[in-house]
Structures are given as structure tokens and as C-alpha cells.
């Protein structure tokens, strides 16, 4: 079959998926009313828009990269990626909705869009030349528009090559390659800028130079997984007779390799931040490890361990069943990865806004947050409010004490457990003969830490209490990340983030509405891609590399 026929059954399926998504979006919008600033709706909308726009753009990147590398193996199914790329046009409209929301203040996804907050915040002020709605608009329209133009141009050249039956060998191919070569470097920079704008700036005080790599790797894996699943579907419908296990083997290798690359970038980002232990940076991971442990570890398990062990073997990449299974899980895993990039930061913004709106009066605060958010009250802004958990008060009180420079005074509400822990740690290490011992320092402010270590050098003969008196920063119940607990006051206005957030569906883990929205966007993406696929021949019959693709051996 030369052209794809978009069967009515496939149409109905994708359209009903879109229906489910629309319904879920509406329910999310109305269920989480004004007091939640529709945050759940907007984050879901942004999450899925960026995810699928990213997949479309990365498909264009793959085409351009493989073409400039003279690769031939993928040529048979390159129309699939060209169709992916055309999704950038509807994607532009989706992101346009977010963009309009910036100007009308219809959503509060981005802290930097709040003029009052920027004026009173040195960090946001400093970033405001990049993080502002005009840059956002320019980037979204200009860059995504540019990507769409380039990928669309490549697709048109490839289709024109099909229709031209003269012997033209490399004429079209060379033009295609020119566009690919121009697209690549520009895409490299612009995609990074847009990922910072769209996603990283949700945690608007935080930044990481690895973030764009990390997100792009995530998108590349998701794109490969979706390609594999779509190709398996199309093959089962009788299309692409020439695509065989050799091509799937290569796609599987990409899935495997880029999953490892994703892990590498993920870990590089994590380890640098963990090692440097600067409060402005650690807050990002601290928040996710402490309050979203299931999300955090599932992300790693699904996106690293699963593809690593399943796809390591040769034959799992050559069998449709195992490959489809791994692709589906990894695809969902990277959707979850984007979920974990967006939701925790947005939830903090939500809490912050609630406080600003509600002032310091606890009664109002309760009203603002609504009954459903009751479990979050414990980190209301007022640190001395009654009813706070004792440990929390202790931790916050210590923060205050230190910021006033009064390091040595034991604050009144100090947690007994913390003192006990400290002594136990010390005693245990004391027993090591002849080795200089130390307490496990847990990220206090630098001056405190340095003081502690200096004292250590000459303090082996002192008692525990003398030596470790200044270290007030031990907190109870740290789940393995205690070493990266940031400075209390350095969290850039997020001091309340040090509290423990309760479970909240749609933030802590995706709820049914999130899954429904995901299905809806996936349906929309597939609907668009399949209708584009049906407008041209499936195999580019005059492509100079088609022969190589048909006789591809891994």
C-alpha cells in the first residue's frame, strides 16, 4: 500500500481520545476553582503541550541530524517523522493559549510574570531581561514558527522529489540537506532557550545549565518510543512491508542509548547540585525527594532501570512484543518525567500566592486553601502560629536564630530527637580508633559549617556537647537527602518549602484527570500525524537512500 488510508475506525479512536482529554481538561478547570487559580488545569495543559510540541520538534531534529550524517536506514519511514514535525503548527496554538494567559494573567504558572513579586525579589529582578512575557512571546512564536517552517520545508522538498519522475538523483536531496544543516545549530540554541522559558522558569529562582540537555534527551526517548509504537501499529495494518526487525533493532538501540544518555544527564545535574550544596540549587531536588519520593524514584526506575535491563539483550530489540512493551512504559515514563519537572514548582507557586492573597491571618489562609488542602496548613507562612508541628517549629526557629548570627544559643523549641541523633552519630564514630571523628554535617549556612570543621581539628579531646553545639541544623526524618538540605534562608523566599507537603492528587502523582488529559493530547497528536501521513506517499520512492534502507542490516 503506497499511501496511508486514515480508516474511519482509527479516526473514531483518536477523536474519542481527544474527547476524553477535553472532558478531563474541563473537569479539571471547574473542579479546581478560583481558590486554586486553576493551577492544576494550567499545569496539565502546559505539561502536555510542551511534551508533544517537544516530540514534534525532536522528530525534526532527528531527520535533520540523520540526513546531515548521510544515514540511509531510516529513509523508508521518514514520512512518519516529517508528519510528527508538522504537529508544531497545532502545538503553536496550544502554547499560544499559555502565552495569552501571560498577558491576561489568566494563569499563574510563572512567578516571574507577577510584577509585584519581581519588584521585591532581587533574583527575579536580575532574570527579568529574559524571563518576561515579551521574550516568552517572541520565543514561542518566533522559534516554534521557525522550526515549523524548516521542517515543513524539508517535508515539501521530499514530497516534490516523489512527484518529479525525471532522473534527478541528488538534486532534491541536496536541498533537503541544506535546510537540515541550517536547522540543526539554530534548533540547538533555540530549543534550550524555550525549554528554560516553558518549564525551567516555573521554579523561577532555580536554574541549571544541564536542564535543556536533560529535557531534550527525555523528549528524544519519548519520540523514539512513540515512533516504534506507531510503526508497529502501521505494520500490523499492512503498511511499511520493507520495515523489518533490522530497523526496529536500530530504533531499539536508539531507545536504549538515549535512555542511558538521559540517565547520564539527569545524574550529572543531580550530582553537581548535591555536591556544591548551594541552597538556591538544592531546593529543587530537596523538594522532589522529600515531598515527591514516589514520583522521583519511579522516574528513575521507569526511565533508566527498565530500558537498561529490558533492552540490553539483542533479541528484545528485535521482537515486536518486548519492544512495544518497553516503548510504552518508557513513553509514559518520560511523560512522568515532565510531570515531575513542572508540578512541584507550580505547587510551591500556588502555596506562595495563597499566602500573599490571604495575608498572615490564619483564618483567611484556611479559607483560601480550601478544605481539600487542609494537610498543607502546616506550612502556613506564619512560623510561630499555634498548632504547628513541633519539629517544624524547631527547624524554622533554628533558621531564624542562625540568620541573626547567634549560632551558639540553643533555641528554645529545639527538637529532642535531633539532639539524640547527634550524640549517637558522634558516639558511633568516636569508637573508630585513632581516626579523627566528626559529626555528619548537614548543610547549615557556610559560616556554621566552616566553624564546625575548624573546631573539629583541635577538638578530639572535648566532649560532644562542646564540639557540636553550633550545629543546629540536624533535622529529624530526613529521607536520605539530608546532606543536601539547603540553607534555610537561602531558599529565595521558599522558606515554607522546608515543610512536608501532603499527598495531593494531580501534584504528588498524576490523578485520573492527568491520565485522561494525556490520552487526549496523545489522541490529538496521532490524529494530526495520521491525517498528515495520508496526504503523501508512505515511502519516498525517489530518495537516493531508499535502496539502502530497504536492504538495511544491523
Amino acid at each position, binding site marked *: 500500500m503506497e499511501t496511508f488510508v486514515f480508516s474511519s475506525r482509527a479516526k473514531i479512536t483518536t477523536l474519542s481520545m481527544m474527547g476524553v482529554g477535553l472532558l478531563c481538561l474541563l473537569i479539571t478547570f471547574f473542579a479546581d476553582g478560583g481558590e486554586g487559580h486553576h493551577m492544576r488545569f494550567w499545569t496539565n495543559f502546559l505539561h502536555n503541550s510542551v511534551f508533544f510540541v517537544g516530540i514534534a520538534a525532536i522528530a525534526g531534529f532527528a531527520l535533520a541530524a540523520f540526513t546531515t550524517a548521510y544515514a540511509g536506514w531510516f529513509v523508508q519511514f521518514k514520512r512518519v517523522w516529517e508528519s510528527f514535525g508538522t504537529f508544531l503548527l497545532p502545538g503553536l496554538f496550544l502554547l499560544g493559549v499559555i502565552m495569552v494567559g501571560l498577558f491576561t494573567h489568566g494563569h499563574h504558572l510563572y512567578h516571574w510574570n507577577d510584577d509585584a513579586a519581581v519588584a521585591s525579589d532581587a533574583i527575579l529582578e536580575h532574570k527579568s531581561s529574559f524571563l518576561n512575557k515579551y521574550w516568552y512571546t517572541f520565543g514561542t512564536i518566533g522559534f516554534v514558527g521557525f522550526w515549523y517552517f524548516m521542517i515543513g520545508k524539508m517535508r515539501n522538498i521530499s514530497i516534490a522529489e516523489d512527484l518529479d519522475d525525471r532522473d534527478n538523483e541528488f538534486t532534491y536531496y541536496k536541498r533537503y540537506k541544506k535546510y537540515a544543516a541550517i536547522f540543526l545549530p539554530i534548533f540547538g540554541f533555540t530549543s534550550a532557550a524555550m525549554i528554560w522559558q516553558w518549564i525551567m522558569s516555573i521554579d523561577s529562582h532555580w536554574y541549571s545549565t544541564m536542564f535543556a540537555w536533560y529535557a531534550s534527551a527525555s523528549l528524544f526517548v519519548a519520540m523514539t518510543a512513540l515512533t516504534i509504537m506507531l510503526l508497529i501499529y502501521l505494520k500490523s495494518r499492512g503498511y511499511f512491508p520493507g520495515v523489518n526487525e533490522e530497523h526496529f533493532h536500530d530504533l531499539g538501540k536508539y531507545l536504549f542509548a538515549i535512555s542511558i544518555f538521559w540517565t547520564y544527564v539527569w*545524574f550529572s545535574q*543531580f*550530582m553537581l547540585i*548535591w*555536591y556544591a*550544596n548551594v541552597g538556591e540549587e538544592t531546593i529543587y531536588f530537596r523538594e522532589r525527594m522529600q515531598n515527591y519520593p514516589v514520583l522521583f524514584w519511579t522516574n528513575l526506575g521507569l526511565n533508566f532501570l527498565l530500558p537498561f535491563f529490558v533492552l*540490553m539483550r*539483542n533479541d528484545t530489540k528485535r521482537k515486536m512484543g518486548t519492544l512495544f512493551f518497553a516503548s510504552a512504559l518508557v513513553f509514559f515514563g518520560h511523560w512522568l518525567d515532565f510531570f515531575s519537572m513542572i508540578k512541584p514548582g507550580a505547587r510551591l507557586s500556588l502555596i506562595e500566592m495563597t499566602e500573599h492573597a490571604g495575608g498572615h491571618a490564619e483564618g483567611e489562609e484556611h479559607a483560601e486553601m480550601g478544605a481539600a488542602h487542609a494537610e498543607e496548613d502546616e506550612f502556613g507562612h506564619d512560623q510561630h502560629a499555634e498548632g504547628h508541628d513541633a519539629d517544624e517549629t524547631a527547624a524554622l526557629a533554628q533558621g531564624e536564630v542562625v540568620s541573626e548570627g547567634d549560632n551558639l544559643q540553643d533555641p528554645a523549641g529545639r527538637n529532642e530527637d535531633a539532639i539524640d541523633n547527634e550524640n549517637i552519630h558522634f558516639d558511633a*564514630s568516636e569508637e*573508630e580508633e585513632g*581516626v*579523627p*571523628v*566528626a559529626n*555528619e*554535617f*548537614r*548543610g547549615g549556612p557556610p559560616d556554621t*559549617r566552616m566553624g564546625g*570543621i575548624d573546631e573539629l581539628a583541635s577538638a578530639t579531646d572535648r566532649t560532644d556537647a562542646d564540639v557540636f553545639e553550633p550545629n543546629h541544623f540536624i533535622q529529624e526524618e530526613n529521607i536520605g537527602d*539530608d*546532606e543536601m538540605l539547603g540553607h534555610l534562608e537561602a531558599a529565595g523566599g521558599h522558606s515554607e518549602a522546608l515543610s512536608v507537603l501532603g499527598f495531593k492528587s494531580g501534584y504528588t502523582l498524576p490523578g485520573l484527570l492527568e491520565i485522561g488529559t494525556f490520552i487526549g493530547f496523545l489522541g490529538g497528536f496521532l490524529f494530526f500525524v495520521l491525517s498528515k501521513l495520508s496526504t503523501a506517499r508512505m515511502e519516498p520512492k525517489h530518495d537516493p537512500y531508499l535502496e539502502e534502507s530497504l536492504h538495511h*542490516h544491523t
Partner: protein
Amino acid sequence: MATIRIEREGGEVTGGSPEESYVRAGQREILFGLYDDEVKLLDAVRAANDAHLDIDDVYTPFPVHGLDPLLGLEESRLHIAGFIFGTIGCLVGFGFMTWVFTRDWPIIFGGKPYWSVPAFIPITFELTVLFSAVGMVTVFYIINGLGPGAEPRRLHDRITDDKFCIAFDVTELGTSEVDRLRDYFDRTGVETVHQKTVAA
């Protein structure tokens, strides 16, 4: 019919009679043809399969795509050794650092706890790769009888350079069967045909 170059110790005898047998116990007589590119080689292997000729081995200067299935070779099991050695390296690396930094010589680095797992990961990774690589090379050498001091066993010098070789074991074959092989070499566009006695 192609001339057979018979190679004996002390030099090559061109045009000797293939019937003369110098094979002693523990030796094999090998008849092999050299081809000048891999496309001819692949066609020749296919022709040999069609004619049910029993190929002893094929030697190429570089890996030729699609040759393994034609020869009916099974997939190498070397990567299983790689996985096992990698696992050992992973455990050794992680275990060793755990022992050093929590039991043997606990020191605080940068205010981190003794058992700071993220800092161990790069080294664990390196040791996984190292053990896996060194282990696989060692296993490969042992299985193939290679390594320092091993006697190089090659039929012809140019097999390691630019010639592709198909070899048949003719120790136990009679004249008519050897003629059949010579005929086969002629049909498949061989460049030269050689006969050589090698250690079994």
C-alpha cells in the same frame, strides 16, 4: 581449472600435484581460495551452500555484514561474560568504596556523610566498564587461544590485508571431490587457489 599453489615448509611450490599428500598425524590439509572483494565472497558462500559443500571456515580482513547467518553461525555468547564481569565490577567498586569510607578510613569530604552514594556512582560506573571490558577481552583470548606468546595461525598473509578467503578441509577427500572444489572455485570467480598443511 585453476592452478593450485601448494605451500610447504621451505617455500611455495607452484603447479605441484594436489594428489601428493604430506599430511602426517595431527595435521590437516586445507584447500582455500582467495577472493578480492566481499560481494564475490558472499556470492561464493551462497553457491557453496547451494552445492552442499562443507566450508571449513571463512577469513576476512574485516567483519562482513550478513556472513554469519549464511555460515549458520550462532550469536556470540561473549556479551554474557561481559554482563557477568560488569556486575562484578559494579559490586566491587561500590562495595570497596563503602568499606573504605565507612569502615576503614572514614573522612568527611565537603561536609557530606561518610556513605555518600552519589559521589560513588561515577567510580562504580568506571569500574563496571573496566571489569566488563578487561573480562571480555580475557575471555575472548582464552576461548580463541590467543594472547601473548600464542603462535599466529593464518593461512595466508593477505587475509589480514585485502583478501577474502574460503577454506575447505581436504584431508580426507579423494581426487574427485577435490576436483569438484576446484571447479567450484572457478565458477565463483576466485583469484587464486592454495593448498596448505596446517596443524589440526
